[in-house]
């Protein structure tokens, strides 16, 4: 390690959104002003989003130290204290990174080790190993972190050797379905192009992360793009594909920029292109920008999009491994799956299989968000319980509210209630409670979240994203949405609500059984799982015409608690429909007939005297 101090700034999309760019600039100016020689390294996201913006400082003789919640105003004080006055235990410190050197520094004894912090303790980082620790734009950094060692081993083992190793590891697709990766590659390897004029094979990476509430793939693309390139090169080598596409969302401009840079550097260093590392294997990689269609996460729709058509799925078989992009054999893997591959090859299939459960090996990355204290990106070994993720890693619910549910797997997944919190995370267990692994969104909901509204939200999402090709999905999701809309509207006749909800479960079953692709087949999951575990909330909406979480606008009314109200008049002045009346310094009232339930008064009230009921 060089003597030069290194300062790492977390600059993924989330860090940038929180203002990391100005912090980066402030650090650069402050270093100049204080005449300190140090290298500033922009990194991807370490995943501890709660403490964004995160700045790590590694200086000679000290362990790498991590500081959180850094604002522009803090920069000068922080750098002065740590780099000039040598006081490391600054008030913003999160923890120290483990180091191999034995270092005892008095003021650091009390600082917790990062891997002992509740947020990191139960995590196992295989995929996110480099995120937040290397410069994603530097091939040198990646090589120093054992980069491309996996590819060298792959070339030594030969394509069939690679497939054997992946099969041995038990790696399954991380995009949601959980198909064994080794088996898919074997199909791809054996498949022969049928068109005598087009003897190509394709390797495609699905980076069209469309699940709302999920950003695992984005973090890998932004934080460690070379690991994806290495994984893809190994996969392409195993199946014998010389052409590859990375299909990435256009909504991820930073990810695209970093991928483009990584591809350019890899080409310049003989890690892509012709005769890679003297192996005789060629691979040409191209980036295809998605144009915003959720259904393109489905592999046949994705292929359609790459070919320049509307992203509509096709019936399978033929599977893409037989006839995929441009009619040629094609293997499609998701970002996280491929990012697992370099480590797997480096350490061997047995090593990988030592993590996880019998049927699900390795780790899974989740985007932990919603009403949770430690929101962020977490990577956990398969087999961990949801309770551990939410209460230990996530540090429980915001404001100590009561847990209600966690939504796993996005629009295809389900909601898991309190009674099932001890369920182990693996592909099979999640199915038993009506959910699925999905790509890794984990949205935590508290007592203030209405489950009927959540179901309606996902169904509405599916009605918008349904490609329209098959009737059950196109019409069925729309009918489901209409039924949910009915039961959350006061004005609808009660008997009509009772009748329509009877159809809901049947309708959901038909959509699940008869839709053409995964989007339609799984679209009813949020409805079915909420019906199963939160039936009481549906009943309250239908029979009592009340929303127990005080969320569904049509079923609630706003009231001022007269004993709390101080008569300040703030709400009255801001009410858009002048629904609030009352004299100054005496309790106010809301005229329900005029109120449009905009919720502004609740947010403005300084003494929290207004609530929805």
């Amino acid at each position, binding site marked *: 390690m060089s003597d030069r101090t290194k300062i790492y700034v977390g600059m993924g*999309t*989330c860090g*940038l*959104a*929180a203002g990391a760019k100005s912090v980066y600039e402030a650090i650069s100016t402050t270093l100049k002003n204080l005449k300190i020689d140090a290298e500033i390294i922009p990194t991807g996201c370490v995943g501890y*989003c*709660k403490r*964004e913006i995160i700045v790590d400082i590694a200086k000679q003789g000290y362990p790498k130290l991590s500081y959180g919640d850094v604002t522009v105003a803090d920069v000068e004080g922080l750098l002065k204290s740590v780099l000039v006055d040598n006081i490391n235990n600054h008030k913003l410190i999160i923890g120290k990174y483990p180091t191999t050197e034995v270092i005892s520094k008095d003021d650091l004894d009390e600082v917790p080790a990062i891997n002992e912090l509740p947020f990191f303790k139960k995590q196992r980082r295989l995929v996110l190993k480099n995120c937040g620790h290397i410069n994603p734009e530097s091939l040198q950094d990646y090589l120093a972190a054992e980069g491309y060692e996996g590819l060298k081993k792959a070339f030594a083992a030969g394509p069939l050797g690679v497939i054997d190793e992946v099969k041995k590891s038990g790696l399954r697709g991380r995009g949601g379905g959980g198909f064994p990766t080794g088996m898919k590659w074997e199909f791809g390897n054996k498949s022969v192009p049928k068109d005598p004029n087009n003897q190509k094979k394709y390797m495609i990476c699905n980076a069209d*992360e*469309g*699940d*709302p*509430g*999920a*950003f695992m793939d*984005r973090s890998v693309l932004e934080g460690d793009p070379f690991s994806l390139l290495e994984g893809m090169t190994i996969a392409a080598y195993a199946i014998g594909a010389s052409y590859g596409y990375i299909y990435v969302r*256009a*909504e*991820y401009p930073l990810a695209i920029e970093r991928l483009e840079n990584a591809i350019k550097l890899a080409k310049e260093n003989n890690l892509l292109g012709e005769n890679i590392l003297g192996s005789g294997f060629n691979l040409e990689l191209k980036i*295809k*920008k*998605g*144009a*915003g*269609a*959720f259904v393109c996460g489905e592999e046949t729709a994705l292929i359609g*999009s*790459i*070919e*320049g*058509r*509307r*992203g509509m799925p096709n019936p399978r078989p033929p599977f893409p491994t037989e006839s995929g992009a*441009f009619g040629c054999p094609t293997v499609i893997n998701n970002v996280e799956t491929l990012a697992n591959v370099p480590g797997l090859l480096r350490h061997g299939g047995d090593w990988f299989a030592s993590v996880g459960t019998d049927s699900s090996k390795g780790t899974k990355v989740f*985007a932990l*968000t*919603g*009403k949770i204290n430690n*929101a*962020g990106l977490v990577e956990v070994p398969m087999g961990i319980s949801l309770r551990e993720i939410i209460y230990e890693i996530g540090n429980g619910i915001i404001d100590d509210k009561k847990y209600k549910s966690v*939504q796993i797997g*996005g629009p295809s997944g389900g909601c898991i209630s309190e009674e099932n919190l001890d369920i182990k995370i693996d592909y099979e267990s999640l199915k038993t409670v009506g959910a699925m692994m999905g790509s890794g*969104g984990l*949205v935590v*909901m508290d007592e203030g*979240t209405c489950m009927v509204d*959540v179901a309606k*939200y*996902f169904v509405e*999402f599916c009605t918008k*994203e349904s*490609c329209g090709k098959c009737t059950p999905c196109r019409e069925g999701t729309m009918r489901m949405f209409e039924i949910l809309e009915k039961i959350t509207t006061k004005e609808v006749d009660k008997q009509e609500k009772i009748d329509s909800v009877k159809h809901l479960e049947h309708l959901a079953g038909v959509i699940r059984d008869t839709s053409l692709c995964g989007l339609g087949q799984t679209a009813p999951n949020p409805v079915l799982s909420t019906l199963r575990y939160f039936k009481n909330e549906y009943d309250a909406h239908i029979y009592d015409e009340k929303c127990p979480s005080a969320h569904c606008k049509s079923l609630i009314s706003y009231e001022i608690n007269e004993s709390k109200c101080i008569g300040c008049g703030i709400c009255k002045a801001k009410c*858009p429909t002048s629904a609030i009346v009352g004299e100054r310094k005496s309790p106010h009232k809301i005229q329900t007939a005029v109120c449009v339930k*905009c*919720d*502004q008064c609740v*947010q*403005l009230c300084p003494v929290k005297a207004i609530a929805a009921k």
Partner: protein
Amino acid sequence: MVKRMSNCTSCNCNCSKNLPEDLVKIFEKYAKKRENVIPLLQDVQEKYGYLSKENLISISEYLNVPTSNVYGVATFYNQFRLVPLGKHIIRVCRGTACHVKGSLKILEKLESELKIKAGETTEDGLFSLETVACVGACSIAPVITIDEEFYGRLQAKDVTALVEKYEKSN
């Protein structure tokens, strides 16, 4: 029908009109293959802000793909717009994390503040309001973006000041 001009002089394509130089520059980057429909639409939209009827026809003629197919692709994907946008584009994230943290209230507030619905542009052409499925900044939910700027951990009451800030900057 769009009126055709005399034979094309500015590019080697099959089209029969003089194309603007900007368009030719974009076309030159791509081979005449169907798979390039989406990249071309993306580049043309980035240049002009939206996809005009004339430009859709030019793309179809350049690639030798029926205009109906190009139109089909342009209307299938959320990214493409067939009408021009306002000066500032406000995008409200409607991802799950933002939803449970109240993004709908923010959207409704913006709609009443700007007097337009999502997907529309204000009469003065200053603001366009859109919803997006997820911007991937879930940890600072609820999030809106105005042009390239992110605004996280928002409350509906913050919206008025934010809109005023952009109104004043003009």
